[in-house]
């Protein structure tokens, strides 16, 4: 399973994978998406972005679809969608556990 070889999705990795769920994206699109989605709460540097994209590509979670000059576009694979869904479920369960424990609603 991809998740085993990645060990864990960090917050940044999770948001990068989230960015691909609706459409194909290039690096600049991903940065913009994460900035807007998190209201700049999560930022992503070029080294982090490059490493994550390389890792995701290696793990076949995304694949390159187009290269136009310096712009490279990627799309999520089925494996990537599955991993994202798994991670969302895991996070949901964490929130549910936290709510049950504290008797408050977040």
């Amino acid at each position: 399973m991809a998740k085993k070889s990645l060990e864990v999705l960090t917050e940044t990795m999770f948001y990068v994978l989230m960015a691909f769920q609706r459409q194909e994206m290039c690096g600049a699109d991903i940065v913009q998406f994460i900035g807007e989605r998190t209201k700049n709460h999560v930022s992503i540097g070029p080294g982090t972005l490059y490493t994550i994209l390389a890792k995701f590509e290696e793990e076949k979670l995304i694949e390159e679809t187009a290269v136009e000059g310096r712009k490279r576009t990627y799309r999520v694979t089925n494996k990537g969608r599955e991993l994202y869904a798994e991670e969302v479920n895991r996070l949901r369960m964490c929130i549910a556990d936290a709510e049950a424990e504290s008797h408050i609603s977040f």
Partner: protein
Amino acid sequence: MKYIKKLIPVEPYEIAILENWFSDLSSQGLSLHSANTIFASFEEKEPKRMIYRMEPKKEGFGDKPPQKQMELYQEYGWEFISIFGKYFYIYAAEEGTMEIHTDPVVESSLYKEYSKQIDPLSNSLFLSVLLYVGLTLLFLIIRGQTNPTRLVRFGDTQAMILPYLLLMSYLFSLRPRGMARVHKQLSAGFRPVAEEEPYRKAIRKHKIFYCLIPLLLVFLYGPLFLEHFVLEYDKPLAEIDHPIPIIELADIEDAPNFYYTDKNWRTDTPDASGAVMFETSAGALVQYYITQHGVSNYSASLSLDYKEFMPYVSSEKYLEDWLDSMWYQDENGWITEELIETPFDKAVLAKKGNEQVLFLIYDHKWLEVNYVGLKILAQPQYYDMFLSVLQQDYHRS
């Protein structure tokens, strides 16, 4: 353009210190141009403080990162400056530029291949040195058991290089271990941070470290190998003024009817008083070769080979190998027999015409008596003399 070279003050894995060092120098007008792990070259420019970041070079990458990576970094304001040894790429940007890496855990994955090189057991210096010493001794034991002759006769190379091997193994283990430490810190979510101008302190530490380790090795191993480095000699017998394992056969000068024919390696100098050679090796730290001749070419001759074996050398195996060597085989006319009822652990006599070679093992020591003459060596009257020689120690350090 003027370039200035400076010694890299710390090990490459001290990334925070080095990044700060480069930044501080840029604010003094020295802009990093290139670097290897020993020297960094700086170009003199207008003082302007830049920020520097080091990123591990992935296996298979060349002197520059891939073009698409450099272009992406450039979009964010980071310029590739230089490769740093075989470990890192160095980038520079103006102050205020977004960090190259914003997720330490993701950054840690770049160090993973270095941490894989680290054996879990070698996480501490002590364990790694201990492991090395253990393996070296094991190697010596195996060599001692399988081919003691080689180890005893030619083992000086191992003796000489052992301290250096230890030092090198320690130094070579430092960098991967340091990289693994960075990997561990990043994996835990923290990027190493250097305090203000820490490199001055680090430089001192670095210098002390590189001076102390060789000194420590000299103290640890020096005495053991001192004899090899300092005391080996080849001197006339008359010049020796310290105890040596010499025996005195009163009759070696008194064999008027003995005609010397076989030993073609013997000195032709009629008045030769003999020679003493002291040697050492990894298999036997104390070794004496002593030749004693009669007063003329026609006198009897006597030479001794005395050795104190290291504990890992099997003396019996050494004897076995030595007897198997070309000089003492039946086809060469030698007759060998094991002598019984002697005070030695083992005694073997090899005989060929007027030549006798007595091989004696006692208390992990070796005495080989080569005699060309008319007397019979394998007699109880001589055993006491040989035994008293073997019962003494001749360490000189």
